[in-house]
């Protein structure tokens, strides 16, 4: 279990306004630094995948750059391996925060047979691990929400307490019929599930005002009988506070919550996309101001958790790590061809 996920087990937060924000939330300095390192780690993997794609070694990259604080903030509220996470393709940072490694992600990106998400079967972006209770998804936008709802329904049926499911999606996904059906079932039955919208203002090229009929996705929550919360998705502490409250609500039987994290997609949708075609130049320039890693780094420095030297050392170490992971992933040979036919059906013994 990753360090981040311990946060939700932390002692009740000390709400002393004199304390720095993370201490108010009951987070230790180490936890903050671990999150910062994790966010930078995943950004390095992101960088590396773009590079590998230009080299023809990774055929698909879908970035999490700009979304890291939202994903790490939520991860603090998730007990990986206990609560279920149902992510979407944008959630590389979440997968790492929940316990997957850079090597895991690179094996996935390079389609290697030891890819823990899919054994090299799925395109990059389909994070999965049964051990960590990260649920395997398809690429079909919005289709996974209902699985989180079904998991929550299962807890209701078995009578399990103190457990929740949490699912992630873009604002574009909230237009899908399946999303609505999942929200409806969760609302009718007041199930222990948390819905996290990573609202980056675009569905590929389509700006939010052409795909979402309201300014704030959180507004939609009222139609499903659940609270809707808006947070700054580039502020890891704001996200954590909202996610923790929502998960606690869910775990204690008070019902579902919709959290909207407002944030920015810092890079094109994928390596097949050129966002300069549809995003104004000024908007692209301004993106640098919305980097959640910079924000957390500055916070850590301001509060004396970090200094320039230590940050540089951290970065160097993380750089070495991704190099090593890339090398290791690259060396994994292709699977035997007959493995194409494996895992189509189970055996009766399983049941």
């Amino acid at each position, binding site marked *: 279990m990753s360090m981040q996920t311990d946060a939700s087990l932390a002692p009740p937060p000390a709400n002393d306004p004199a304390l720095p924000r993370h201490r108010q939330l009951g987070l230790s300095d180490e936890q903050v630094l671990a999150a910062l390192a994790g966010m930078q780690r995943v950004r390095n993997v992101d960088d590396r995948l773009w590079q590998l794609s230009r080299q023809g070694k990774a055929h698909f990259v879908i970035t999490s750059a700009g979304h890291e604080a939202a994903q790490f903030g939520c991860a603090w509220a998730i007990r990986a391996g206990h609560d279920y996470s149902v992510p979407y393709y944008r959630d590389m940072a979440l997968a790492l925060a929940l316990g997957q490694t850079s090597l895991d992600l690179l094996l996935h990106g390079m389609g290697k047979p030891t890819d*823990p998400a899919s054994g090299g079967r799925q395109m990059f972006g389909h994070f999965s691990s049964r051990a960590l209770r990260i649920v395997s998804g398809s690429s079909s936008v919005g289709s996974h929400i209902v*699985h989180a709802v*079904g998991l929550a329904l299962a807890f209701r049926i078995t009578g399990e307490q103190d457990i929740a499911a949490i699912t992630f999606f873009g604002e574009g996904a909230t237009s899908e*019929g399946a999303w609505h059906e999942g929200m409806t079932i969760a609302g009718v039955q007041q199930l222990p599930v948390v819905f996290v919208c990573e609202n980056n203002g675009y569905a590929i090229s389509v700006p939010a005002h052409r795909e979402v009929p309201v300014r704030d996705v959180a507004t939609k929550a009222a139609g499903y009988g659940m609270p809707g919360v808006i947070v700054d998705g580039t502020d890891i502490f704001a996200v954590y506070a909202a996610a923790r409250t929502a998960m606690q609500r869910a775990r204690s039987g008070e019902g579902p919550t919709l959290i909207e994290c407002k944030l920015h997609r810092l890079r094109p949708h994928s390596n097949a996309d050129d966002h300069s075609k549809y995003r104004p130049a000024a908007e692209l320039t301004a993106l640098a101001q919305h980097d959640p890693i910079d924000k957390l780094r500055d916070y850590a420095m301001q509060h004396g958790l970090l200094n320039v030297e230590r940050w540089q050392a951290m970065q160097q170490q993380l750089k070495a790590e991704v190099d090593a992971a890339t090398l290791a992933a690259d060396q994994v040979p292709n699977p035997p061809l007959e493995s194409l036919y*494996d*895992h189509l059906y*189970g055996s009766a013994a399983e049941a």
Partner: protein
Amino acid sequence: MPERTFLEAIRSALIDEMTTDQRVFVLGQDVGVKGGVFLVTDGLYQQFGACRVIDMPIAEAGIVGAAIGAALHGLRPVAEIQFADYIQPAVDQIINEAAKLRYRSAGDWTCPIVVRAPFGSGIHGALYHSQSTEALFTSTPGLKVVIPATPYDAKGLLIAAIRDPDPVVFFEHKQLYRTMRGEVPDGCYTVPLGTAAVRRTGRQISLFTYGLMLHHSLTAAEQVADEGIDVEVVDLRTLYPLDRETILASVRNTSKALIVHEDNLTGGIGGEISALISEHAFEYLDAPVRRLASPDVPATAFNEALEAHFMLNADKIAHALRELAAY
């Protein structure tokens, strides 16, 4: 052994399996207090409670998707789609999600769900309460498609489907619900998925069919028996994956094949079976493989005369058998 209707057999499967296995639960529209629009789940709500017999909103993708999610946590959901005509909004969940979960996670996750749906015409259901929609699912690796024809099989196959480690779409012919009776044991038993049953042995023609059409086919086989036409009638039971061995063994024996289904002719399972026979038993064939199916129109009409004209029956099947015998 107690006699039960087809419908009671299905209900009995649900009750016995839910009693045996706490992981099994039922969800769908009107399955609770009302007991389902056909009363298949009648009494289950009272017996097992609102937590295991769950009335759902009108949201087919949500129903199947919720079943998938629950299965991921180890439960055994049995989802009811009120009519096979309304399974379309759930096609994405069934084909792209349930059927691919095991494969896409290289065996890490599995998805043992059952999706039940009443299908077929003959109850004045017209275009949207009569469809045979099995062809939507018989080209999806990872899925199983089961259609019982007898009360005994209905119970045994449904229990097998619930226990199966993979997703199963389970179609029940509405006309059989109350008209078909047979001996059905108390308690749990299974009829294996993936195996066809030879319902009548014969030497001249192999007739492959399933669901309601099995019964019309058996009647037709008796009709032509008097004329010296000896028909072997095979109940396919599982449409995906097909029981190739039984199909091929039968046709190698008889040398002629007729496939009968209520689904539209074009694009129905008949084409696949015909192709299989051509591919693997060509040298045994004494005649073209024939298909008899519903006409290629959207579904049966509401008007009684048109409905009767649309539907297959024993006479039409007997006619096709005679033609094939005379070839």
